[in-house]
């Protein structure tokens, strides 16, 4: 059993909870329940036995085995993270435990982020360029190819999305769209520039669950 934290400072953290619920993950505390929760997609759901919890400070982070960093405004989230001991705790956490960032979350995980240059956790060896496609007018829903067990198409919702460049040798590209890497993995760190939590497709969250389960089993570590 793993406890998956969802950083709930600002942004679409409830949408991530919704995706996890559909994969059979249960809320850890009453405060983690969301209004009108969806039913798990199947009885043999991959997240059965796992729990999720919203994380708003270092004490809550300490209870989690993995962390999702949602979409939202990275500059807003930074205001909270830079308060007190949260940053140190989070930086330590993502160095050792699985983390999954979407959009703003991916920006926070990157080696460098901007413009303008802003602080980031540096566990994903990429440079994230914020709002790289432009403003909301340039937001779009596209179909891209997901590699892995065979190549398949996946719907991708890009909202004022960043682009990832300067990929280090340890970074594996799991999906590209329009020539840009949009889903990448480096060890236990997974990041998407689009929002799988805003679609009905659960494959990216399933992949993260597999990373979490792999990391919590000492044999495969």
């Amino acid at each position, binding site marked *: 059993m793993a406890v998956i934290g969802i950083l709930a400072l600002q942004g679409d953290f409830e949408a991530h909870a919704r995706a996890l619920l559909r994969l059979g993950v249960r809320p850890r505390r009453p405060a983690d329940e969301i209004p*009108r929760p969806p039913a798990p997609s199947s009885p043999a759901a991959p997240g059965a036995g796992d729990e999720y919890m919203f994380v708003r400070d270092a004490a809550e982070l300490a209870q989690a085995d993995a962390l999702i960093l949602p979409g*939202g405004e990275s500059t807003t989230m930074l205001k*909270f993270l830079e308060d007190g001991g949260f940053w140190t705790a989070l930086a330590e956490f993502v160095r050792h435990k699985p983390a999954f960032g979407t959009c703003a979350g991916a920006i926070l995980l990157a080696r460098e982020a901007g413009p303008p240059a802003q602080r980031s956790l540096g566990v994903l060896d990429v440079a994230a360029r914020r709002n790289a496609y432009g403003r909301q007018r340039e937001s779009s829903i596209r179909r891209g190819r997901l590699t892995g067990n065979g190549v398949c198409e996946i719907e991708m919702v890009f909202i004022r999305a960043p682009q990832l460049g300067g990929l280090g040798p340890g970074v594996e590209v799991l999906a590209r769209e329009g020539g840009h890497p949009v889903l990448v993995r480096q060890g236990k760190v997974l990041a998407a520039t689009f929002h799988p939590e805003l679609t009905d497709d659960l494959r990216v969250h399933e992949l993260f669950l597999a990373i979490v389960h792999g990391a919590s089993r000492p044999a495969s570590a």
Partner: protein
Amino acid sequence: MDNHKEGELRLKTGLAEMLKGGVIMDVTDAGQARIAEEAGAAAVMALERVPADIRKEGGVARMASIRKIREIMNAVSIPVMAKCRIGHFVEAQILEELGVDYIDESEVLTPADEQHHVDKHAFRIPFVCGARNLGEALRRIAEGAAMIRTKGEAGTGDVVHAVRHIRTIVREIRELTLLRDDELFTRAKELAAPYELVRWVAREGKLPVPNFSAGGIATPADAALVMQLGAEAVFVGSGIFKSEDPASRARAIVQAATHYREPKVLLEVSEGLGEPMRGLDAASLRPEEQLQGRGW
């Protein structure tokens, strides 16, 4: 709904999803916009004058000057919204061309049409609209709004109307979920809202778009109050830059929107903020002085 329209709506509400748990602040120049971003605002609303000044100075309130909006767009990296007059679809066309991230078809500006709101389906840029009750919210959604906010009573610093509006919308949604299918037809007629939307809300127990709060929010406690009542994010207009210490107040309201269920944090951030905006008792306003009656 055809696939294309459904996709467009998901993109439009998608940006609203990203603003949840955040604070959208009214700003009137690049300096204020930077203070707002630095305080942790999730977005800013570019305005010529904040509602409190529009109220005081009177005259026709229109879309802000292009130079002003552009200056604010260039000053910050967070989303920038701007207001158009109710029904003024050409102001909206200009704002879309300019590339703002969200358009607020707002009762704070002087309405340009006595009967019709903007057909918001015709735009690629998402719209937010004010509402006082469920019927009004659903009419705006039918016209294509991708986010609803309570109207409250802008420019007063008095939260009572925002509270009334969020309570009304949330209660009317709850009531719908208890009705029998055959009772929804009459209820749709009473709400003056499309039956399909009424049925959707009855089934899902929520609005099909995010539901934010605005109008009279002036303190961290006000922000937490509307969040506890069911708002998913807050707009703060005059409340920040009409207060004694805007930067501290902005930071405190950002904290309150995230930690809205934690009195310990609310106490901490409420201390030492300086004077809030002086405000205006909304009950002292004559009906014709209220902005919330604009739109229908």
